[in-house]
């Protein structure tokens, strides 16, 4: 009974995505026709070919990879030492620092849109990959620090003390003791942050137009009223979300931890 209900609910929620994937294999005419065909249409790959060939899909996909990957890696490089420090060498101010970092994430991006836009214009960062990497890296830094902190916090301190007793220096301790235990947490943080950066659609829409435009912006270009190319929109969208859907499914658990700042485990 509950099985049937759960499957129906799951199917309904998933349906828009399924419908989009189906439409991506239809011809433009079939995608638009009423009554719609669910499975018995002429399956075709032509939309994928067109999207690939005509609209420079690869260019935008590469931008997405560079921006999501780059901003995540830089954020990790800054956040790992910080989280390590707060988890293993806490001071009286650690809690306040953590909460302050959280509060920077609460700042609505639109509140600083004007100055960021003007600064970017002045320094020639509009529509550049570097500019997008910078803003996404800083925007996600608080979440990255927080997630890493909650993971590092779970590593038993006794192990460190034992290592110290054996005369390990802080550097050795970091490399040989801590890092192996921290790898799962670091990997989860990396994954979640790539997802967030891949889907980010405020800064990417406002700060990039063509050269540096990632897939979010590329898909938005299908919104023009004359461009009723549903099958091609669907094909481009399917390609844009497929990798992240797969990553996302692997990281459901971390999603809860990362997005609630450890408030729900």
């Amino acid at each position, binding site marked *: 009974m*509950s*099985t049937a*209900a*759960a*499957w129906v*609910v*799951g*199917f309904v*929620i998933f349906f*828009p995505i399924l*419908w*989009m994937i189906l439409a991506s294999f239809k011809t433009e005419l079939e*995608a638009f026709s*009423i009554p*719609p065909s669910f499975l018995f249409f002429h399956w075709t790959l032509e939309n994928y070919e067109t999207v690939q060939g005509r609209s420079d899909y690869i260019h935008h996909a590469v931008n997405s990879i560079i921006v999501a990957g780059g901003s995540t890696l830089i954020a990790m490089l*800054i956040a790992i*030492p*910080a989280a390590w*420090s*707060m988890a*293993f*060498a*806490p001071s009286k101010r650690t809690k306040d*620092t953590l*909460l302050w970092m*959280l*509060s*920077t994430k*609460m*700042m*609505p991006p*639109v509140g*600083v*849109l*004007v*100055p960021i*836009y*003007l*600064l970017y214009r002045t320094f020639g960062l509009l529509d550049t990959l570097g500019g997008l990497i910078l803003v996404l890296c800083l925007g996600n830094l*608080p979440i990255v620090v927080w997630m890493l902190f909650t993971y590092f916090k779970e590593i038993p301190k006794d192990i460190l003390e034992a290592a110290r007793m054996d005369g390990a220096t802080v550097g050795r301790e970091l490399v040989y003791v801590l890092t192996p235990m921290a790898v799962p947490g670091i990997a989860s943080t990396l994954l979640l942050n790539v997802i967030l950066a891949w*889907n980010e*659609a*405020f800064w990417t*829409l406002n700060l990039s137009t063509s050269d540096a435009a990632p897939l*979010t*912006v590329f*898909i*938005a270009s299908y*919104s023009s009223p004359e461009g009723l190319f*549903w099958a091609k929109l669907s094909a481009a*969208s399917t390609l844009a979300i497929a990798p*992240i*859907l797969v990553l*996302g*499914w692997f990281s459901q658990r971390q999603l809860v931890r990362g997005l*609630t700042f*450890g*408030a*729900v*485990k």
Partner: protein
Amino acid sequence: MTEQTRALGRLLLTPAVALLFVWMIVPLGMTIYFSSLRYNLLNPGMEQFVGLENYTYFLTDPAFLASLHNTLVLVGSVLAITIVLGTLIALLLDQVVVGRNIVRLMVIAPFFVMPTVSALVWKNLLMHPVSGLLAFIATSFGLAPIDWFADMPLLAIILIVAWQWLPFATLILLTALQSLDEEQREAAEMDGAGALSSFIYVTLPHLARPITVVILIETIFLLTVFAEIFVTTGGGPGLATTNIAFLIYAQALIQYDVGSASAGGMVAVVIANIVAFFLVRIVGRNLEA
């Protein structure tokens, strides 16, 4: 802990703190400064100090009241939909379900779809008044199809955003449910509590905190919904789907009115901070434990 470790700790923390500090203070300071100027990008070099005039202008602009109203309706409706449905779905998935993992994957999927994709797929493939699937379903039942973006544009946006955030609420509430002690529930049943009263007296209090967390976090993000509006309605028709975030965007990058947009930005910051205040307190309490 040795003095050396402590010094190293400070050293390692500094880059993150310094960067976040600059990232917060510089743009915010500039926003405050710009908000006191008459400054339009179309008339460069004409900047002039006007005190609080931009705030008076922004706050008394009918567009502000309309967008504040739209923002509240959008946030409130999406919260209501995602919390109620999310709780129900979480309770359902917490039952014995064959293939629960697969169902859970399907339920979570919308969260990973980029906002521009979900907005355009809903707008075209589902909500189009002639060729959309919803129109087809409506006509099959002999009903008049709804022209979503002409007749009830704000509701259309609400549905799209609710679909995106439903997985988040469901996933967090499900996680919380699964941590509810099985013994607690059995004890309640032993005491003769029915399904309903055990839900009201055991499950619901247990969900109170995660629900609060969901409300606060969703509110932070929902206050600044942007891409969904940008690609579907562009804030229209009229101001029907303009929220505060979109209004500020329009003043800044369409009308190039830096002063007014900055004043609006400060208003958005204040609103978000009220929500953030409560969220930070809840998270802070959790840090102690």
